[in-house]
């Protein structure tokens, strides 16, 4: 990133950035137009109709329905256009479009960002990404609310304790960019910053290969370490259900009704197993609340998800 002493526009490094900039410029023109218009009218009238003498008696003008309608409707219709475009662009930041979307997992805590790549590498306050590949961020906080903000991508999303949030983005320009925490989170809020490195695909492959075990492997290790494997036997004969193929299947619940076993459900099943008990099983699974870290949870979930893939083979 070049150092410009008086920059006007931030770096633009994602597919969504030019769209937001375009919308920004359009609204800026609109805003400048109306602000200048009001300033101009006010100053012009103030000069033109400047009081000449104390005895001035201007005529009474009651008002005009036509004008009222015109100046409420016309600007409103104009801004409705901004609403439509703005909402569409916003939705794009949440829509997975590409088939080869890669995933990045972010954990925020006072006051650092912990980033995990499924292939294995883990980083703190730094994030490496390949260029031109769609990335889905899945984020959770360990303590208070933070917000993951990359100005060059024109994107931010709050990172909340107790719940996953996510957004999707495609970086388009190689370079180093700012990473900020945008939600006030305590003393070192302004120190919760870092850098995003967007790299050529080939460089990224090299970089990723430098990492150690994959998230799945780590999750598998945790699965043994926490004793999950003692109950969740692959053959389904344990005290708990087999977890093979669980991911994304419909689970029948003891209380009736069913639920899709997505990531959020898996998380809840581990932290709060009694909230939704699977049909045909006793609610004997202990809670792992406070025992597994948020990062560990992401790894275990990654492992459970991988069990599905193996079954499909």
């Amino acid at each position: 990133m070049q150092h410009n002493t008086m920059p006007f526009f931030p770096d633009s490094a994602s597919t969504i950035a030019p769209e937001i900039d375009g919308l920004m410029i359009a609204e800026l023109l609109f805003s400048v137009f109306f602000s200048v218009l009001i300033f101009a009218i006010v100053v012009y009238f103030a000069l033109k109709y400047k009081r000449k003498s104390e005895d001035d008696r201007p005529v009474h003008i009651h008002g005009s329905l036509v004008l009222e309608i015109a100046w409420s409707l016309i600007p409103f219709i104009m801004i409705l256009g901004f609403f439509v475009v703005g909402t569409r662009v916003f939705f794009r930041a949440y829509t997975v479009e590409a088939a080869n979307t890669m995933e990045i997992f972010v954990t925020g805590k006072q006051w650092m960002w912990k980033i995990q790549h499924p292939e294995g590498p883990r980083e703190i306050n730094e994030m490496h990404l390949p260029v031109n590949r769609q990335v889905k961020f899945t984020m959770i906080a360990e303590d208070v609310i933070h917000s993951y903000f990359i100005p060059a991508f024109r994107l931010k999303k709050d990172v909340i304790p107790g719940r996953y949030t996510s957004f999707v983005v495609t970086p388009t320009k190689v370079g180093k960019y700012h990473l900020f925490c945008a939600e006030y989170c305590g003393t070192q809020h302004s120190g919760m910053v870092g850098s995003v490195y967007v790299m050529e695909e080939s460089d990224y492959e090299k970089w990723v290969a430098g990492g150690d075990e994959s998230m799945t492997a780590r999750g598998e290790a945790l699965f043994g370490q926490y004793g999950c494997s003692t109950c969740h036997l692959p053959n389904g004969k344990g005290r708990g259900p087999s977890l093979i193929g669980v991911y994304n299947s419909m689970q029948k619940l003891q209380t009736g009704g069913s639920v899709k076993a997505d990531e959020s459900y898996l998380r809840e099943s581990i932290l709060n197993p009694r909230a939704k008990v699977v049909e045909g099983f006793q609610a004997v699974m202990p809670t792992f609340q406070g025992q597994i870290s948020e990062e560990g949870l992401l790894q275990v979930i990654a492992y459970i998800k991988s069990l599905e893939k193996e079954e499909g083979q």
Partner: protein
Amino acid sequence: MSAYVETPDAASKVNYLTNGWTWQSWLLTGDHKRIAMLYLISITVFFALGGAFAAAIRLELMTPRGDLMEAETYNKVFTMHGVIMIFFFLIPSVPATLGNFLIPLMVGAKDLAFPKINLLSWYLYIIGGILGLYVAVSGGVDTGWTFYTPYSSTYSNSAVIATAMGAFVAGFSSILTGLNFIVTIHKMRAPGLTWGRLPLFVWAHYATSLIQLLGTPVVAITLVLMMLERGFRIGFFDPALGGDPVLFQHLFWFYSHPAVYIMILPGMGVISEIVTCYSKKSVFGYEFIAGSSLAIAILGFFVWGHHMFVAGQSTYAGMVFSLITFAVAVPSAVKVFNWAATMYKGSISWDTPMLYAMGFMGLFTIGGVTGVMLATMALDLHMHDTYFVVAHFHYVMVGGMVMAFMGGLHFWWSKMTGRSYPEMAGRVSAFLVFIGFNLTFFPQFIVGYLGMPRRYHAYPDEFQVYHVMSTAGAGVLGIGYLLPAIYFTYSLFAGKRVTDPNPVNAKGLEWTVPTPPPTENFIVPPVVTEEVYAYAEQEEKSLV
């Protein structure tokens, strides 16, 4: 309107200021005019305090490194700045001073409906304020004025409960003021003063009071729950229990968005009065300005989610909130256009109040249209919690409401105190405020779009230029505010005496009573026979 009758009656020589000199006669008064003066003094103190915190913020941000103070101190400084400016200055500013003073006069009543409750409001405000001051001297609070959970309820190590308690108590003060206004406006209007003849200032306060009544209790209970969660772990925002911290934000903004209209509507009322008087014209589109106040008050309750577009709220809910936010801009636009149209073919004086009013129209428009930009979901994705937001809200709050407050204070100063201020000094300060203000906050739009996050105590080097400009501007702005502080104080004791009940040739019942008004306001109970803002003698039939 009934003309002022010069009565030789001895009673009329005693005005509300000279009616009693003891402490009790002020501190136990039921007179709305005295209570307004008490408010005026207390909010000025808080404004100066909030301003001092602002100065500290600006000095710290002059350099990219946090070299003036610790990060923790900085966090406390901006929190105290926000809390004081919002809860102890801007929300009571116009309503509790000018509104309190003028509403009974404008509707032709002897006092507000419930004078004791009015006094109680002031005491509640003072109790809240003392809690705030106590926090300021005893170590501060560092949650930001928004008190987001779980930081406020669990993680912060500062005086959160005392601060929230202060805001809670001040909230009740605000509720009671609103209640008093609504009852007075409904029940105590002089004969002949129909709704269609009510000054726009009164209409604006009516709308404001509705928000105070319907919104403030929600933030009150929300703060109570936050305090309970902090104190006793009884509260349901805690994610460790499966609670939703975002629910706190919903409940907080349900009040705090409408609250921003508590902070602007009274100012809009002031502008309507000033523009008509200094253009010597009846207001253009009376019904539309009056109606748009109500529209803003009501629509304002539907849009709070625009503070939460990226906070984990559903994208679809965000869409609805965004759309309604666009709609709420329309009534504000209607007002601005109508004021501009009022000036058309007027006889416009360049006195201080009018200068402030003209500044208001321009700066509020800038603040408003940037609000509309923030309401566009895609742009908020980038600009949320950056300095763009900081610039937006200072444009509406300082460029809007504070300008209006200053304008109104100059406009009614002689009526309130019986003294005049030096006109030339007033114009100079209005000019300084305008220049200083823009220099302070315009650069923040740019640095915000560049990505500078809010509530940062240190920042990357490339943002520095804008921060230096901003700090310089704050200096000019500070002088701009200091000037009136000096000459108003001077005029209180040594200013030229004003006895003319209507020195500016304005319309409205408040100008028919002696200056300063007697304790019971009207010597003869007024009867209204004229239309509102009857400045002109003849009428031009149609414009378009």
